[in-house]
């Protein structure tokens, strides 16, 4: 069992190309989550009450539901109703993105609220508008503080992406299962898939760690915002 059979070796290229699908899902979701999460967090802190409640409800729903339920709901329920032509990969990316947006919004909100009031006062005393102060003083600090929490979304998304198997996205786990169905030997195949996930996980975290270090400024330790 420890020796890889020719059948498994032949199927490795197919398995490996699943890495691109998996990483594609993760990167698209991270990006979508970022694009949604920052404005959502700003609305939570600075926005009008009714909008703030809308965002909070959104977060409550997307953080409260299992990823599998969200995938089923969107794949079988919402998308067929409103956009029947979208394929499973894009649906999965949207669902993962919507979900991480909820988490990211909370991360950014915490970071914004951790910036002292004096920063805003100082900016306004220089004649900046509220919007200008947020954009040039508050957000640059808040985003730095949010970075450790934000990069933590990567391993979560990576492991969650495997659940997209349930709606037939041809990512790593799906391809692993297809290979098992074709040639058997589930243990060997699953262990290879596990190793790939673990390498992607810690390799990615290492890269994000490097990025964090690059943006470190004295006084902004790694303390979670």
């Amino acid at each position, binding site marked *: *069992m420890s020796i890889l059979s020719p059948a498994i070796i032949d199927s490795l290229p197919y398995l490996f190309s699943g890495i691109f699908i998996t990483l594609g899902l993760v990167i698209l979701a991270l990006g979508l989550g970022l694009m949604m999460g920052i404005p959502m967090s700003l609305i939570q802190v600075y926005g009008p009450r009714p909008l703030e409640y809308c965002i909070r409800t959104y977060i*409550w*729903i997307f953080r*409260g*539901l*299992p*990823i*599998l*339920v969200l995938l*089923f*709901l969107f794949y*079988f*329920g*919402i998308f*067929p*109703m409103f956009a029947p032509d979208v394929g499973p990969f894009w649906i999965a990316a949207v669902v993962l993105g919507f979900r991480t947006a909820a988490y990211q919004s909370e991360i950014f909100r915490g970071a914004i609220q951790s910036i002292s009031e004096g920063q805003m006062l100082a900016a306004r005393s220089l004649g900046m508008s509220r919007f200008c102060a947020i954009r040039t003083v508050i957000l640059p600090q808040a985003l730095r503080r949010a970075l450790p929490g934000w990069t933590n979304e990567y*391993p979560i998304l*990576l*492991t*969650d*992406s*495997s*659940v997209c*198997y*349930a709606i037939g996205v041809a990512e790593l*786990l799906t391809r*692993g*299962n297809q290979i*098992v169905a074709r040639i*058997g*030997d*589930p*243990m060997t195949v*699953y*262990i290879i*898939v*596990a190793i790939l*996930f*673990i390498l992607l*996980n*810690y390799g990615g975290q290492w890269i994000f760690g490097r990025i964090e270090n690059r943006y470190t400024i004295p006084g902004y330790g790694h303390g979670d915002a």
Partner: protein
Amino acid sequence: MIQLQFDFDLLLPVLYQGALVTLALILVSAPFGFLNGIAIALGRVYGNRFVSKLCHGYVLFFKGCPLLLLLFIIYFGLPSVGITFTAFTSAVIGFILCNGAYNSEYIRGGIQSVSRGQMTAALSLGMSGMQAIRSIILPQALRKSLPGLANEFIYLIKYSSLAYMITVIEITGAGKIFAAKYFAFFEVFIIIGIFYLALVTIAGQVIARIEKKIAIPGFGGV
């Protein structure tokens, strides 16, 4: 609308059965996941080099490997090397292994945040190392790690749905099968969604109450 009403009468008993399985999965896994977390954390902090490394490796593996893949390994993989569990047992084992790995990280943080003087003082009174860990270090460490452990419990509730992927008919699975038969995905998953939101929200409230009840002046949590 009449069609939907008809569905509900059939749907609710099905979901009720599934909900019971979901609750069983959570309630069986959570205590063992908690104990597993304590064991791994103690191994990492107080174990000798080998035990500590082993526990660290455990955490790296089970945090790095997707839970769904872990369930596949246990339910579909292990039988090929002669180890067979029922689907329910496989799911519970997977949840305990994974939940324990995450719990252990919070508990380890808690242990390390307890000042060294606490151990010194306990030893100075004649306690053995084990006694000191049990009655001085752990009670403090667990209090400090409670917010993290609570988070993991909420995750456990949500990820229990993955058991359906290895044929355990819990509420998500029960709903999916029903929805496919009557082609009523939207309605079914709205109800399931409400179930999970209620469960998660109630759990959050209960945890908050527990936190309040065991709160001690001077303990903010990590």
